[in-house]
């Protein structure tokens, strides 16, 4: 008798004890003289069920979770005797939360062994690169254009146009840069891909290299992601050995190699020009645009800078064709978005689905409300620079334009849920404070405005003349929005103004104190 088990080594699963669970299985297997094959996978993204353990059965994989080391003996009994168990979740693919999703980008994440190139191939990997090689650069870019794919880092700029610009830019040396500086709170999709399906990112970048004629690429990963850095580094070594990187990628004429670079704890380095500065070994100070990175990027050469999720969407588009991707979505937001449910939420995790679901469906229906069981009061979408949405705006569909029309942003797809204990004045203050900590210092509205914002909010708490302070905050937000060089200072008004507009009662301090 032997069993084949799947246990995640994703850091979200490790953070809740996956390593201890794996060790307990090994020990219990030895004790019983039961042969266990343990495959370490990425996470399926159902974090409230992590550590989630799957076992291979003749009918497919069956899941159990959340597993603690003490559950292991009972689980092995249940698995070997096909008996019921209180942690049994049934066939993994039939778990409703998973079944409801449209996993194009995350199709393999949590399923395969992230380190096995054979596994990657066996599950549809490298088809995109092969097709790109047979189509050639120009036609590959046309596929990306037709798919409607927009930059998943947050700006939503059409990926195909960016690639075309780099392809048409003169110059022998061009670069592919992956922005894996996923600093937004509430987002972890990039991390999951890098830890759970690293060859997908490599394939996406290789297709970009082929399309624009670039021979060198960099993946800039934030230092807060030690597991992602380690996994990507190992995957690159294996990809070189397996011929995915190196000379004649995908059977084309193009050679391509990759390097991982670690960030150093700076949020603003997620802004593409400051990321390029950082890669060059400088302070992460934002560059004025133009010139665009597509014309003069890394070391002054034409450079494609895309987010992990943008590159990760590319292999599907090439393998299945632009139409297969563009058939999903709404309006100008085509394809799927890996939504990340985070914070005070019952069912937190990764939910990939076509654009168009309403915020209410995402928070109440998929997220299941708050983890604390208290009412949902505010939801911040799109990271620290995203707006706070009240329940009244829960009918907003997940779509770049629909969120913009309500003074918010989809950003990188992070959804952070807060219950009714949240103090929105404090959240507005934090938005300014975070900006003051992370500002690169180049432009005045961001560098000084953020500090003045913190001070002014503190005065709202302590002085009687709140009306004039609030007027000052609005004025300051206006200056930062239109006067900042990049999105850090320019977007801080989103959380601040949304807190002020949708939750004005939290800014009326004496009334609050009287109520308490």
């Amino acid at each position, binding site marked *: 008798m032997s069993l084949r088990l799947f246990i995640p080594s994703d850091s979200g699963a490790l953070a809740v004890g996956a390593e201890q669970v794996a060790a307990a299985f090994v020990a219990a297997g030895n004790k019983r003289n039961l042969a266990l094959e343990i495959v370490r996978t990425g996470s399926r993204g159902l974090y*409230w069920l992590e550590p989630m353990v799957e076992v291979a059965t003749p009918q497919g994989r069956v899941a159990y979770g959340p597993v603690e080391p003490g559950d292991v003996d009972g689980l092995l009994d249940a698995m070997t005797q096909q008996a019921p168990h209180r942690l049994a979740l049934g066939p993994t693919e039939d778990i409703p939360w998973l079944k409801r999703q449209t996993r194009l980008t995350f199709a393999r994440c949590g399923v395969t062994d992230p380190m096995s190139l054979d596994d990657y191939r066996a599950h549809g990997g490298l088809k995109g690169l092969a097709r790109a090689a047979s189509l050639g650069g120009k036609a590959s870019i046309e596929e990306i254009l037709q798919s409607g794919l927009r930059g998943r880092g947050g700006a939503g700029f059409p990926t195909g146009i960016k690639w075309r610009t780099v392809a048409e830019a003169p110059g022998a040396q061009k670069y592919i840069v992956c922005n894996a500086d996923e600093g937004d709170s*509430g987002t*972890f999709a990039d991390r999951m891909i890098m830890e759970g399906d690293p060859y997908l990112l490599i394939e996406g970048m290789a297709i970009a290299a082929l399309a624009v004629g670039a021979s060198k690429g960099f993946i800039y990963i934030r230092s807060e992601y030690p597991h992602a850095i380690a996994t990507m580094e190992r995957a690159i070594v294996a990809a070189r050995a397996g011929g995915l990187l190196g000379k004649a990628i995908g059977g084309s004429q193009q050679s391509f190699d990759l*390097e991982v670079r670690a960030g150093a704890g*700076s*949020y603003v380095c997620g802004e593409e020009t400051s990321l390029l500065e950082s890669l060059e070994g400088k302070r992460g100070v934002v560059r004025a645009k133009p010139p665009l990175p597509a014309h003069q990027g890394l070391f002054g050469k034409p450079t494609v800078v895309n987010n992990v999720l943008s590159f990760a969407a590319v292999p599907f588009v090439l393998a299945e064709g632009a139409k297969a991707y563009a058939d999903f979505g709404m309006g100008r937001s085509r394809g799927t978005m890996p939504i990340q449910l*985070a914070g005070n939420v019952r069912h*937190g995790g990764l939910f990939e689905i076509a654009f168009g679901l309403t915020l209410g469906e995402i928070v109440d229906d998929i997220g299941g409300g708050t983890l604390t069981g208290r009412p949902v009061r505010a939801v911040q979408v799109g990271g620290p620079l995203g707006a706070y949405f009240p329940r009244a705006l829960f009918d907003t569909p997940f779509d770049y334009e629909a969120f913009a029309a309500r003074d918010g942003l989809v950003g990188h797809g992070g959804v952070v849920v807060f219950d009714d204990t949240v103090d929105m004045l404090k959240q507005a203050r934090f938005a300014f404070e975070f900006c003051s*900590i992370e500002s690169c210092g180049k432009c005045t509205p961001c560098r000084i405005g953020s500090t003045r914002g913190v001070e002014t909010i503190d005065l709202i708490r302590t002085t009687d003349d709140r009306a004039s302070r609030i007027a000052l905050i609005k004025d300051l937000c206006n200056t930062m929005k239109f006067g900042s060089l990049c999105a850090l200072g320019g977007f801080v008004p989103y959380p601040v103004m949304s807190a002020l507009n949708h939750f004005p009662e939290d800014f009326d301090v004496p009334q609050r104190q009287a109520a308490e």
Partner: protein
Amino acid sequence: MTSQLTGPDAWDEARASDIIAELQGLDGPLLPILHAIQQAFGCVPEAAEPLIAAALNITRAEVHGVVTFYHDFRREPAGRHVLKVCRAEACQSMGAEALVSHLERSLGLRCGETSADGQITVEAVYCLGLCAVAPSALLDGVVVGRLNERKLDTLMAEAKR
């Protein structure tokens, strides 16, 4: 992952020069060099700056500017253990601020400081990507999620042993 248990080595100019020589051929070598120096010595000592500047043919001011721009680079070695507590929004929504206050009280320090016995440094971090298992932290490079006061106290006690 860096283990804090062995502790960083004392400053050694020859070793620093070796590290620089090994990495200076990279495209944009400064950040990799600074990371490697900090890995070896627990911080980026001021004495490293002129060495790096000379090797890369840039000014010492440029090196100093980069060292001080990034939150990761230290001027002094940290305590034996480093706890990075996430204070970003997703963890805030699950009570991260109360956890930080608890830590500060129980360890007798402020976030960003090292305990008097040199055992532990507590630092804020803005997101570890563990937002669905908040609140979270990184203890000597090991990820921990779903933290509460009890779990933190156990971790601290284990670290001190």
